């Protein structure tokens, strides 16, 4: 910006100086023209004098013509001087002196010619004219000298000024050139520097990228491994279980007569163990699926979801007296399938741990905490000892015996994974026999 401003100013200065240089040069040429015209005039007057005096002695007609030519030349020179000095008052004043003297001089020269034409000759006849000529000759010479001197002075000044302006132009041109070169160099170095910085940044970015790519590849590999692991668990671990259960059943059916009550009881326990392991495997698979599942992000009506889960639970045990208090129109942005899994686990948990109460009360609601929405599922069930609340969300962690409340301990771990995948937190508050409240948040609008 500044550089271009400086260049513009320099350019304008150079332009102005160049103009002045041209002007002064023109003026100097003009003055030289004046000087030439003055010389021409002097020469013409001399020629006229020679022609006039020559005619007086020799009487040649050609000399009359020469006189006429010289006179015309003198007048022409005067006209030129008049024009060229029009702007110079001093020279105009000189010219005003010169013009009548000139007229007188040519008048005298004409008189000399006329004398000869009248048949006069000899120096005596010329005496009066000579006398008169003597009276105009010095002022004429003086004024011509003055004019010449003035023009010479002007020429000197103008040439000098033109020289100064010319130097200025050259200096400005030089300065401009240097400046432009400096700017170009600066830009070049800036460009080089910029390039270096950019190259370095690009290199760093590339390194980070390749690191990320590497980690991504590792993550992908891990995911693939996890997937094939889950697949194996799903397929291979279940097959032997099916065998154990199937053949236990076959024993019970086909060899019942050879088994006593205890033998049958043992086989029954084998089968129960198998069932439980089957459920564990399925729960584990579901948990891994929660982690692997693609996340969608859309509007989820949690209230409606909670209502439908509540209805399903009530349908499984219609005899239970239960109040579901569900605040309407709680909406978030998230994955509907995953959120349903989370909500299903939380409300089912409440349903399970209130099974021993006379009247079940389960509430789903929303509170505000520092401007953030916190959702909760609250029940009047068995509750838990807050000392162990941290273990709640670990996989296969249980705070109640299987005989009190059956379960695999995977539900809350699943809830936590869903909530984490939604960028939220989950925690619980309770006391033994005081019911439990599970809170969770989600980071709405978070893209997975």
């Amino acid at each position, binding site marked *: 910006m500044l550089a271009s401003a400086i260049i513009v100013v320099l350019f304008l200065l150079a332009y102005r100086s160049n103009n002045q240089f041209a002007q002064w040069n023109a003026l100097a040429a003009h003055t030289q023209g004046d000087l030439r015209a003055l010389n021409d005039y002097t020469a013409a007057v001399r020629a006229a004098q020679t022609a006039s005096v020559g005619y007086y002695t020799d009487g040649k007609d050609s000399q009359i013509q020469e006189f006429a030519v010289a006179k015309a030349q003198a007048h022409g020179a005067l006209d030129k001087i008049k024009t060229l000095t029009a702007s110079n008052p001093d020279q105009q004043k000189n010219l005003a002196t010169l013009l009548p003297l000139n007229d007188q001089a040519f008048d005298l020269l004409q008189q000399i010619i006329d004398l000869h034409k009248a048949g006069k000759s000899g120096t005596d006849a010329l005496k009066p004219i000579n006398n008169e000529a003597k009276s105009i000759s010095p002022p004429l010479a003086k004024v011509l000298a003055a004019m010449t001197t003035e023009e010479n002075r002007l020429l000197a000044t103008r040439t000098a000024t033109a020289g100064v302006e010319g130097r200025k132009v050259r200096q400005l041109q030089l300065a401009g050139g240097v400046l432009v070169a400096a700017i170009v160099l600066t830009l070049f170095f800036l460009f080089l520097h910029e390039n270096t910085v950019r190259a370095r940044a690009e290199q760093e970015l590339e390194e980070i990228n390749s690191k990320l790519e590497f980690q991504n590849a590792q993550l992908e590999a891990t995911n693939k491994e996890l997937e094939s692991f*889950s*697949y194996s668990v*799903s*397929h*291979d671990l*279940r*097959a*032997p*279980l*099916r*065998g154990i*259960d*199937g*053949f*236990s*059943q*076959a024993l019970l059916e086909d060899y019942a007569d050879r088994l006593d009550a205890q033998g049958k009881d043992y086989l029954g326990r084998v089968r129960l163990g*198998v*069932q439980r*392991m*089957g459920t564990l495997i399925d729960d584990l698979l579901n948990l891994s699926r929660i982690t692997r599942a693609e996340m969608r992000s859309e509007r989820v009506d949690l209230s409606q979801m909670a209502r439908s889960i509540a209805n399903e639970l009530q349908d499984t045990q219609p005899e239970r007296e239960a109040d579901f208090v569900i605040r309407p129109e709680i909406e978030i942005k998230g994955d509907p399938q995953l959120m349903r899994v989370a909500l299903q686990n939380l409300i089912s948990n409440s349903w399970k741990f209130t099974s021993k109460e006379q009247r079940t009360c389960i509430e789903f609601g929303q509170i505000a905490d520092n401007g953030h929405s916190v959702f909760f599922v609250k029940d009047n069930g068995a509750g838990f000892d807050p000392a162990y609340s941290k273990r709640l969300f670990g996989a296969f962690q249980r705070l109640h015996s299987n005989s009190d409340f059956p379960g695999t301990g995977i539900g809350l771990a699943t809830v936590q994974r869903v909530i984490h995948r939604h960028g939220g937190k989950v925690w619980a508050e309770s006391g033994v026999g005081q019911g439990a409240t599970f809170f969770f948040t989600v980071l709405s609008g978070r893209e997975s």
Partner: protein
Amino acid sequence: MTNNNSILLVEDNADDEALTLRALKKNNITNEVVVARDGAEALDYLFGTGGYKGRGARTLPQVVLLDLKLPKIDGLEVLERLRADKRTKLLPIVILTSSNEEQDLLRGYDLGANSYVRKPVDFAQFIEAIRHLGLYWLLLNERPPAVKTI
């Protein structure tokens, strides 16, 4: 080409094979059961190639019970090859597997499986599933007409 009332069970696990046969018996399903222990054998049997060269691809079973995880050629590829062949294009195929992975379900149906049943761990439930399968595919379902071949 003709049809018969047999069942082709494609199963590599001997326990599962025994349990399936038992479940069929328990449900009084007396149709002949042919067992192929890997994907290649299943294809050989159906197309009358390899070890079944003498059999000739003349008769097709009423239904194929196809496991997915198989040695040599896996279940999904068997399905793909059967669907690509004019003779077995319409053959009723039930995927009977331990897996309920979404990818297997999608791929199975995508390749043209007629049904997808997950083997329950609980044998009682397994017997029940086999009962339903037998009832549906051997009695209720009308099989496609036999494909005319030269």
